[in-house]
């Protein structure tokens, strides 16, 4: 019989050892899955590391994959920290892309500005649209006490259809209608060249979006660890009743945190457009199929909602995504990456137990009805 005892103190080394251990266990389980489906785990893992990190140009590609999930991971972490389960980062990212694209096209129409102006304007517009979209479930939660998990998730589908509508079913501002071909095969208007975000480095290419994400992570860390706002969030997360008792304004915090979370996810949308696609991608097989929002939840949970850890995990999972994309084929069937993410997350969740509880194997003796005592093997 195993017994769990709540730890009275949590040693520091555990918060490193447990996630690393979980990762090892996850890859061991994954190896079993691979073996069972007729793949050689060792060579799969070797290819994975090569395609994700060590190969030629692999790291640059990994950073491209890591950028959007860095934003959605931070977005999830920000909200989940207050036990506010915003799983709408997916839709908030789309809306950020819509807002970012709109301002870039507007500026382009007016022939205005340098790249710096574009970057700032796109970030602001995307953050605002993302935040507004996130405020829908936020307001409903704060004023009608409606479950934000379901509302934010439902809005992902709505945002997806909105995106498709803008490019495929309407002659919207975002759609390219300049040529006959563009009218037959719907696509978004191309951004002006000045709206393309710069990159850094040569051997490893670092997109500006990733740098912005790192900056956001630092700001969020300061906000949560060093400010009154962060203190209030931690109290509300732990005990809403205690927060109310202490005179904290819970409703305002819900709105603020949802808006913040949506804004961060929205920035991810701006970065998609500015860094990579340079047009609003409305196709269900494009932005919508990437599921950055959902992967962000995995990132945030693995990072235990710590903004700095999110940066690290985003790169790791970005490597996995990138490798999965590069290797896709017979040896590396699609879906494998999702399975791996799921297993890693399960192991991390199970590992939480070891951080919170101590596992004991108490010795015990079983007394039979004759009163004879037999020690039971443990």
């Amino acid at each position, binding site marked *: 019989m195993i017994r769990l005892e709540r730890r009275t103190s949590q040693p520091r080394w555990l918060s490193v050892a447990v996630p690393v251990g979980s990762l090892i266990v996850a890859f061991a389980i994954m190896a079993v899955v691979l073996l069972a489906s007729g793949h050689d785990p060792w060579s799969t893992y070797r290819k994975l590391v090569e395609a994700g990190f060590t190969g030629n140009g692999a790291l640059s590609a990994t950073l491209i994959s890591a950028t959007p999930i860095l934003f959605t991971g931070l977005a999830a972490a920000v909200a989940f920290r207050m036990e506010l389960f915003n799983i709408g980062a997916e839709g908030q990212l789309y809306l950020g892309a819509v807002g970012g694209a709109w301002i870039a096209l507007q500026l382009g129409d007016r022939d205005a500005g340098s790249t710096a102006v574009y970057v700032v304007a796109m970030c602001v517009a995307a953050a605002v649209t993302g935040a507004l979209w996130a405020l829908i479930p936020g307001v409903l939660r704060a004023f009608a006490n409606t479950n934000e998990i379901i509302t934010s998730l439902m809005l992902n589908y709505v945002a997806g259809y909105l995106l498709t509508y803008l490019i495929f079913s309407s002659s919207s501002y975002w759609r390219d209608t300049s040529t006959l071909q563009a009218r037959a095969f719907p696509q978004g208007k191309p951004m002006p060249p000045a709206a393309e975000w710069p990159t850094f480095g040569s051997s490893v290419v670092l997109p500006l979006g990733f740098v912005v994400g790192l900056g956001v992570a630092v700001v969020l860390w300061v906000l949560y660890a*060093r400010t009154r706002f*962060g203190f209030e969030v931690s*109290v509300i997360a*732990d*005990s809403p009743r*205690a927060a109310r*008792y*202490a005179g904290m304004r819970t409703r305002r915090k819900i709105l603020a945190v949802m808006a913040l979370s949506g804004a961060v996810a929205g920035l991810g949308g701006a970065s998609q457009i500015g860094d990579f696609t340079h047009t609003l991608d409305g196709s269900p097989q494009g932005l919508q199929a990437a599921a950055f929002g959902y992967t962000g939840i995995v990132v945030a949970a693995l990072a235990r909602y710590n903004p700095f850890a999110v940066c690290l995990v985003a790169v790791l999972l970005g490597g996995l995504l990138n490798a999965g994309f590069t290797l896709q084929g017979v040896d590396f069937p699609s879906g494998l990456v999702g399975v791996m993410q799921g297993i890693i997350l399960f192991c991390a969740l199970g590992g939480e137990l070891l951080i919170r509880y101590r596992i004991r194997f108490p010795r015990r003796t079983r007394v039979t*009805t004759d009163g004879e005592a037999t020690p039971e093997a443990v």
Partner: protein
Amino acid sequence: MRGITKRFPGVVANDDVSFEAASGEVHALLGENGAGKTTLSNILTGLYRQDEGEIELHGRPVRFTSPRDALDAGVGMVHQHFRLVAPFTVAENVVLGDHRHGHRGFVLRGRAIERRVAELGEKYGLGVDPRSRIWQLSVGEQQRVEILKALYRDATILILDEPTAVLAPQEAVALFGTLRAMAGEGKTVIFISHKLKEVLAVADRVTVLRAGRTIDTVAASTATARSLASLMVGREIDEARPLEQSRPLPDVLSLEVEELTVAGDRGGAAVRGATFSIREGEIVGVAGVAGNGQRELAEALTGLRRADRGTVRVCGKVLRSGDPRAAISAGIAHVPEDRLGTGLAPSLSVTSNAVIKRYRRGLSRGPFLALGRMRETALAIIRRYDVKTPEPSTPARNLSGGNLQKLVLGREFEGEPRVLVVAQPTRGLDVGAIETVHAYLREASSRGVAILLVSEDLDELRALSDRIVVLYEGEIAGEFEAGEATIEEIGLLMAGGRGS
């Protein structure tokens, strides 16, 4: 039970405890809070497993691995915190988990069960409508349901953990009658209490526990309150004596409450037109059976609950209703009934909890926290109020009940309040902690803090209060000056009898 030992992380709750109870006997387990009575009974009912020792029932050794084993063996228990399912009916609660009827009992036959419950109730004087839902019942009626649950299963041993804590004195007397009747039928009743007089009134024999060990078993007929008390505490004690006469108090009103009406959780008024006031430095006790509006009154005064009607004035200024922040800035401190969860954020550090109300004033620079000053403030509270914690960064939930209460009290006093609303300040604390908490309250009152003390412990109310008001169904049923109130008078009002 022989040689029972039970350890929890960091504590030995039972250390080689032994006692035996005969059929047809009311056997009391007497001990202070924290003496290990509840742990012992949880072992006897299969909720916990002992680390060492054995249990014999009717001469045969038994080993309970789950509550089901204990129930099947005929051991029933009335827990201090009732184990009832609030949305269920009485009958549903009574049959819950009953599996003796095998496949024939698959379908729930409501009528038959209701009839059986009604019969049992009549036989033992435990009248309660089998079709009422638990949340509609008073606390006393809920306790009857708990006893009916055991009787329905033909329990031969019934354990009651502090059953009188939630009853008015007159209700307690009725309960004693039921227990004696059960013993008269040959059942064994184990009565757990820390109250000497009750134990003497109901028990045949008394086993005294202290600090997790058995001290002695004595016959109630040969024992006196004094002899039991010295066994229980390990030294001679003076019984808590009520304040003999009123202290001289300044004629300054700190808190004035007028015609306050507050809705309860289930709709309907929980507090009806309460009017009273508290002078500077005065302690006003609120007596009442649980669920008569005490909690709602405390919550309304501290802003946690919006009042429907009436006004509250603090030092002459009207208080905005339903706004905890307004109450805090008006100088109302609050020690809530639920320390861990409302009074404290359990997973946050002692430091964070120490400044949970003060971080807005003085402990921040603009939007940023002044972490150094927060820590200093926390350390000052820890030192001054003797909060025993391994580290200031330890999560609050790891502290013992007494230290949690000291932390809450210390934090509230540091805010230099004018009014303190304190609910059940010593519930679940051990003797030493109770004395400390009482000393802190007296000290605060001597500094001029007006205190509203809500408690279900009449001895505590009488020991601390200058005045006692009795709440019955949300109304103030009566008011007594210190010294003029007898337990019987207060009890009569608590039970709904109109007094003078």
